[in-house]
């Protein structure tokens, strides 16, 4: 059982490797990206190919307000993490709550849009190719928002219980990476669905 260093003492060497949390989260983001890419490709491929039914141009309304909400939440979460790094738990708590609220608003917007599409426009996932690809792409993104909100809520709960401190800034930063990813995906989905596809 060899315990001694091979050729030099540990103290002589400056050895810093990237942090596990960030690297792990980036890897997860890479894997999720590859899933989303396939749904986006399917969406783009099927643009204009529906044989029947409501078309994007007549069915969709561009959700500008709710998009602004979601994208702002990226900004607020960034401010929250910054606050925690500076040990300002109060400020962190406020910005974190803002992020949660903005994310929830976005989700509400999606729900309202779906309600309108299903009951007023008559578009469901089984109506035509547009319906199938729209609901699955936006739905997959929405699912990721839900997961993100759950995680954000857990952190919120711990904050209110007074358990979150300066040394947790690193973990919160890793979580914020996920949230930024969810926002970035929305930028792509928004562009493909509401701008290119309409």
């Amino acid at each position, binding site marked *: 059982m060899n315990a001694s260093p091979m050729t030099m003492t540990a103290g002589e060497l400056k050895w810093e*490797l990237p942090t596990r949390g960030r690297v792990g989260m980036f890897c997860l983001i890479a894997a999720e990206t590859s899933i989303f890419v396939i749904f986006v490709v399917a969406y783009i491929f099927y643009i204009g190919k529906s044989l029947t039914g409501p078309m994007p141009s007549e069915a969709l309304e561009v959700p500008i307000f709710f998009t602004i909400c979601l994208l702002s939440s990226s900004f607020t979460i960034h401010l929250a993490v910054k606050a925690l790094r500076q040990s300002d738990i109060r400020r962190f708590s406020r910005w974190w709550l803002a992020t949660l609220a903005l994310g929830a608003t976005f989700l509400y917007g999606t729900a309202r849009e779906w309600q309108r599409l299903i009951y007023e426009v008559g578009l469901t996932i089984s109506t035509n190719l547009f319906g199938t690809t729209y609901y699955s792409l936006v739905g997959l993104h929405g699912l990721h928002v839900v997961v993100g909100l759950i995680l954000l809520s857990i952190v919120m709960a711990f904050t209110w219980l007074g358990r979150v401190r300066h040394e947790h800034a690193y973990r919160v930063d890793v979580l914020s990476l996920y949230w930024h990813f969810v926002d970035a995906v929305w930028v792509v989905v928004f562009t493909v669905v509401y701008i290119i596809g309409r």
Partner: protein
Amino acid sequence: MSTLAFPTTLPISRPFVDRLHEWVTTVDHKRLGILYIGYALVFLCIGGVEATVMRVQLMVPHNDLVSPQVFNRMFTMHGTTMIFFVAMPIVFGFANYMLPLMLGARDMAFPRLNAFSFWLTAFGGLLLYFSLLGASGLYGAGNAPDVGWFAYAPLTSQTFSRGHSTDFWTLSLLVSGIGSIGTAVNILTTILCVRCPGMTLGKMPMFAWLILVMAFLVLLAVGPLTAAQIMLTIDRYLGGHFFDVQAGGSAVMWMHFFWIFGHPEVYVLVMPAFAIVSEIIPVFSRKGLFGYPFMVAAGVAIGFLAMSVWAHHMFTVGMSSTANTFFMMTTMAIGVPTGIKIFNWLATLWGGRIHFKTPMLFCLGFLFQFLIAGLTGIMLSAAPFDWQLGNSYFVVAHFHYVIVGGILFAVFGAFYYWFPKMSGKMFSETLGRLHFLLFLIGFHLTFDFMHLPGLLGMPRRIYTYEPGRGWDIWNLIVTAGVAFQGAAILVFAGGLVWAYFRGKPAGNDPWDAWTLEWATSSPPAPYNFAAIPVVRSRRPLWDLKHPEDPDWKYDQ
């Protein structure tokens, strides 16, 4: 440390339940590695039985050992099992066990994720086989999926695949796919973040580099399969139209998505074989690996190129000549870095002092067989050739040559190489050689001759064939090889059992090797290293054993 009254050399025998609980709740990478490997071995036997059924059915034309329905389930289950529940777990198992040791670390970056990923994969396999009991098919009692391991649409739509057998295929792979992604995240993070001091990326063992490329491919490739399976399930249960040709959907799109996963997947399987061979050949040639930087570059190049070749599985689908030409180009291109690797292994042997121990025998088998497999691959890469040979037994022979002749041989080599480390016992060299000989004969009987029916026009996935096409004799010979392979596996299993109970103590470093895992006890302590090592070259133990001529003196 002991203040106990009785001698501490006596092992305290704990109840079986306690020991079982320890294994089920372990997060130790070594234990999880063994769980992965054991799991894979069980499914190897099951997949082997499925193959045997098929081969006996095909031994003579118009055979009626099994009905076409059963045969179609056999090849679906055989392919799915072997790829997802044998090959992947076994490479993950070795990677899990060896990586932290080779990197001078105490465990993987995320031990609990490690355990979670294993149990997900395990559950996926059980779910697939539960289909034998649980899936209600059109024909009554439960049955396994019968849509082929690549499950082309629209065969998988509700119209043509009633009942739930296809859903078992989809869900079991979805679940184990998530497990694979978890393992890949773990591997990448471990390699990037947990290396011991002094071990720059350029100084870590080649094994680690190739596992890194493999993990990267898993991250990018499993996603498309997951996406396609979600789409399929939406089609089957929510009335979606992704692959619904009557609503304008495209059957070809499934093929694209599947093969965007499927091709990198085979590189996921073969990279660890490269990794294993890159560790074993140097040790038994008594020379360091030739051309390390070029091997790294070739491995990374293969990883990138692997994402660009997928439609060579679709040459017969009627894509434009531009598309066919493009994919032919990328597929031929990937042959170049692969060839470079073969040459580098050859150069490692050259000028060395070769010891023909069992691990080395299997690696030499790998080298020879992988060369041939690569060449039949080059043949298939030429689209016009593929138009004749694609979807025939030539392709079946080619990929089994890679997976069995290449990957499985390398895995057997890994077994024999690292078994002493993992168990502390040496295996019997005689039994190991017998295993090698029997398997070599069986492999070549089966898979050399399998090329011929393909060249003579026999397509794949047929439960029987007409006499008089010239295929009969070759099918018979192919089936004959199965007996030898089966015998070899029995010898292998027997050898492992014998070695575990009767093998000589192995010591830390039975092969006089050079990477860090050989600096631990056999088996390693749960914490691997009492003090984290500091390294200065690619072969830390060589430096220790040859202080007058250490590796770090030479700029590599």
